[in-house]
C-alpha cells in the first residue's frame, strides 16, 4: 500500500524523479570510472613490470640480493630441470650479472651488466621489440653489447661505438673487455634504460669464469594467478636457492599499486559525499515543496511513521531505478575506453615514461569493485534520504495545509 503511494508520487513529479535518478546514475558512473582509472593504472604498471622488467618469478642465490656479489652463482643445468617441470611456465632466461663500469672516451658510468641468451631473453622479456637503433644480439658476431636509450644519450653512444666494460669475476679479479654496441633499446622504464646493459651469456660467463652457472633466472608464466603456486613448488625443489615473486623483487611496483588502493578509497569517499549531498538537497527541496501535500496526508490520518517510510521508500525506488542505468553506463564507458585507452600525453606530455608508465591509460574495473560501488551508492542514497524524511515529520499538519 505504502509502496503504491510512493510509486505514484514518483510518477506525479517526473522531473524531480528524473533528477534524482540521474544523480544516482552519475554517482555510480563517476565512482566506477575513477576506480577503473586507478586500477587500470596499477594494472598497467604491474603488467609492464612483469612483462618488461622482472618477469613473474626470479631465482637467486640467497646471498646475491644483499651483495650482488659475483661469487653467488648456481648451476644452470640442475635448475633448468626443475624449472621445466613447472606446469604454467611460458619462458625462462638464465643470466649472469655483474656490477660494471662502462667507459668510453667521454667518461664512465656504473651499470648492471647482464649476460643473456638472446632467444631466451627475448621470449621472457621481449627485448627484441624494444630495439630502437641498430639490431638485436645475434649468435654470429662476438663482443656485442646492447645499451638503453637513456644511457646512450647520456654518454653519447651510437650503434657501432666501442666501449670498455670493467667488472669483477667470481674470484674477485678485475676483468676488462671491449664490446661494440649492436643495438640501443628503449623500455617503458627510463630508470632501467640508464642502468641495464646486455651481452651474450656465453661470453660473460666465460669472462667471469663461471661457465654453465648463473646468478639469476627469470620465469615468465602463462597467467599472473599461477605465481604463488609456482614459487612454492620451485622452493620445494630448490631449497638452497631463494625464489621470489615480482612483488618482492620490485617493491616500488607493489608500492605504487597499493598507494593506488589507498588514494582511490579517499577519492571514492569524496565522490560519495558529493553524491549524497546532491540527493539530500534534491529530496529536501521535494519535501519542502510538498509541505501542503504531506500536511494533508497527515491531516487525513497518515501516521508519522508512515510518512517517514514513504519518503524513504521513494528514494529507494529512485535509487534502484538509477542503479542499473549507472552500472550499464559505467560498463559501456569503461569497456570501450579499455580498448582505445585514454591518452594522458595530452595532459601530461610524455612524462609518464620516466616512471615506468605508458602515456596511454587503459581503465580496468574489477567486478568486485563495481559491486562495492553499487552497495555504497545505495547506502549513501538511503542515508541521504533520512534527513529529508525526518524533516517531513517535523511539519505540523494544520500549518502545512494553510500555506
Amino acid at each position, binding site marked *: 500500500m505504502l509502496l503504491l503511494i510512493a510509486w505514484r508520487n514518483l510518477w506525479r513529479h517526473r522531473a524531480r524523479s528524473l*533528477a534524482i535518478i540521474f544523480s544516482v546514475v552519475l554517482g555510480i558512473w563517476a565512482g566506477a570510472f575513477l576506480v577503473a582509472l*586507478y586500477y587500470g593504472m596499477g594494472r598497467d604498471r604491474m603488467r609492464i613490470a612483469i612483462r618488461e622488467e622482472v618477469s613473474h618469478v626470479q631465482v637467486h642465490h640467497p646471498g646475491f640480493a644483499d651483495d650482488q656479489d659475483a661469487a653467488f652463482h648456481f648451476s644452470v643445468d640442475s635448475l633448468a630441470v626443475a624449472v621445466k617441470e613447472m606446469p604454467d611456465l611460458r619462458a625462462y632466461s638464465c643470466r649472469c650479472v655483474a656490477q660494471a663500469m662502462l667507459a668510453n672516451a667521454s667518461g664512465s658510468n656504473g651499470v648492471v651488466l647482464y649476460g643473456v641468451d638472446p632467444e631466451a631473453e627475448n621470449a621472457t622479456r621481449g627485448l627484441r621489440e624494444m630495439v630502437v637503433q641498430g639490431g638485436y644480439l645475434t649468435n654470429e658476431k662476438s663482443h656485442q653489447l646492447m645499451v638503453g636509450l637513456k644511457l646512450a644519450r647520456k654518454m653519447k653512444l651510437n650503434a657501432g661505438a666501442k666501449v670498455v666494460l670493467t667488472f669483477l669475476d667470481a674470484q674477485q679479479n678485475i676483468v676488462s673487455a671491449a664490446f661494440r654496441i649492436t643495438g640501443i633499446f628503449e623500455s617503458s622504464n627510463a630508470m632501467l634504460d640508464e642502468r641495464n646493459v646486455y651481452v651474450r651469456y656465453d661470453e660473460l660467463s666465460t669472462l667471469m669464469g663461471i661457465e654453465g652457472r648463473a646468478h639469476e633466472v627469470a620465469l615468465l608464466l602463462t597467467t599472473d594467478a599461477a605465481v604463488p603456486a609456482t614459487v612454492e613448488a620451485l622452493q620445494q625443489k630448490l631449497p638452497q636457492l631463494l625464489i621470489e615473486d615480482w612483488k618482492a623483487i620490485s617493491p616500488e611496483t607493489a608500492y605504487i599499486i597499493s598507494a593506488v588502493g589507498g588514494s582511490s578509497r579517499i577519492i571514492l569517499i569524496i565522490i560519495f559525499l558529493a553524491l549524497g549531498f546532491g540527493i539530500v*538537497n534534491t529530496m529536501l*527541496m521535494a519535501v*519542502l515543496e510538498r509541505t501542503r501535500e504531506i500536511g494533508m496526508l497527515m491531516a487525513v490520518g497518515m501516521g508519522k511513521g508512515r510518512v517517514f517510510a514513504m519518503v524513504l521508500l521513494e528514494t529507494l525506488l529512485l535509487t534502484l531505478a538509477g542503479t542499473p542505468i549507472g552500472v550499464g553506463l559505467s560498463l559501456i564507458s569503461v569497456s570501450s575506453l579499455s580498448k582505445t585507452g585514454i591518452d594522458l600525453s595530452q595532459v601530461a606530455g610524455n612524462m609518464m615514461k620516466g616512471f615506468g608508465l605508458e602515456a596511454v591509460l587503459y581503465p580496468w574495473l574489477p567486478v568486485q569493485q563495481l559491486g562495492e560501488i553499487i552497495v555504497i551508492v545505495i547506502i549513501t542514497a538511503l542515508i541521504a534520504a533520512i534527513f529529508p524524511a525526518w524533516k517531513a515529520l517535523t511539519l505540523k499538519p494544520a500549518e502545512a495545509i494553510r500555506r
Partner: protein
Amino acid sequence: MFVMLAWRNLWRNRSRTLITMASVWCAVLLSALTQSLQRGAFELMVANVVSFYTGYLQVQQSGYWDEQTLEYTLPYTDTLRATILQYPGVAALAPRIQVFALASTGEKTKGCLVAGVEPEAEDRVTRLRRKITAGQYLTDSMPAVLAADGLARRLHIGVGDTLVLLGQGYYGAMAAGKFPVCGILHFGSPDLSQRAVFMSLSTAQQWLDAPGQTTTLVLSPENPASTDKLAAGLKASLPPDMTVKTWMEMMPDLIEHIKTDTASSAIFLGVLYVLITFGIFATLLMMLLERRREFGMLLALGMKKGQLARVVLYESVLITFSGCLLGILTGIPVIWWFARYPIRIGGDSAEAFRKFGFEPVIPASTDPGILLNQALAVLFIGLVLSWYPAYKIFTMNPVEAMRG
C-alpha cells in the same frame, strides 16, 4: 529595483535559498578539499624525498654538478655564510664536503659516498639525527663516522667497529683514514642505504687535506613553494662562479612522477566537477518546478519576461555568490584541520609507504590559492547555470504555468 526584488524573493523562502546555497557551498568545499589533499600529498612527497639527502636548494661551484669531484670546491668563508643566511627566505644552511670513496674493513671493500657535515646544521636541514637506528649522533670534534645500514650489512660492521676510508684528497694525493663507527643510519632511499657514510665537516676536511673547503651548501627555504624564486634571487647576489641548484634540477625523476599524478588528478577533478554541476543544476531545476505557478502569475499580471528573467538571474547569482563566499569561509578551518590532523592510510598501503621511509599520511596543503581557485571555478559553474532558469522563463507559457 530588480536586485531588490531578487533579494526579497530569497528571503521569502528561506529554506529553498539555503538548500541551493548549500549545494554551492558543498561544491566549493569538496573541490577545494580534493585539490588541497592532492597538492598536500605532493608537497609531503617532495619534502620526504629532498630530506633524504639533497635538500631543496644547493649552492655549488659552477661545474661541480656535472663532475662531482674536489676540483670544483667552494671555500666556505664567514662572508659567504653571512651573505646566504641574511638573504631573505633562507631558513637554514648546512655545508658539506662530499666525495666518492672506498670503504674497507680489511676483508671486504665497497664503494661509498662520504659526506662531511656540520652535525647540528645538517640535522636542521635533512634531520639526519632522526635516521639513526643504533649508536649515537656525530659531534663536531669527534673523528668518527655514521654508516648507512645497507652498507654496514654488506661490510659486516656495527657500532664500535673500525672503517678504513680510501679516497682522493684535495691535492690529488691518496686520502686514507681509520674511523670508528659511532652510529648506524637508515634511509628511505635504497640507494643511500647502500652507500652513505657521514662524518663531521672538520674530520672530513682533515682527511681530505682540504681545510676550509666544501663542495655544496645545502639550504632550506622558509617557504618550499617559493624555491624557484629564491634560487634565482640568491644566484644573482652570489659571485658569478657559484651556482644555485634546486631539487627540481637535481631530481628530474621526481618532477616527472608529480606530473604523471597531476594528469590523473586532473581527470578526477573533471569528474568531480560534473557531479557538482549536476548537484547545483538539480536544485535550480527543483526551484523552477516549484515556482512555475508564481512565475505564471507574475507574467499574467503584466510583468515582462525579460524583467522576470532578470530577477531570477539575480537570485541565482546572489545565491551562487554567497554560497562561494560561505565555502571559502568554512573551507579555511576544514582544510586547516586536515593539514593539522592528516588522513592516515591503513593496511597494505601504509606498509608500502613505510618501506620507503615515508609516514603513511595524506596532509592537506594550506596554499590559500587552492581555495580561491576552486571557489572561482564553482562560481563560474554557478554563473553559467544561473542562465538556465532565466532561459526557461522566456520559453514559458503563462497560462499553462498557472494551471500546473
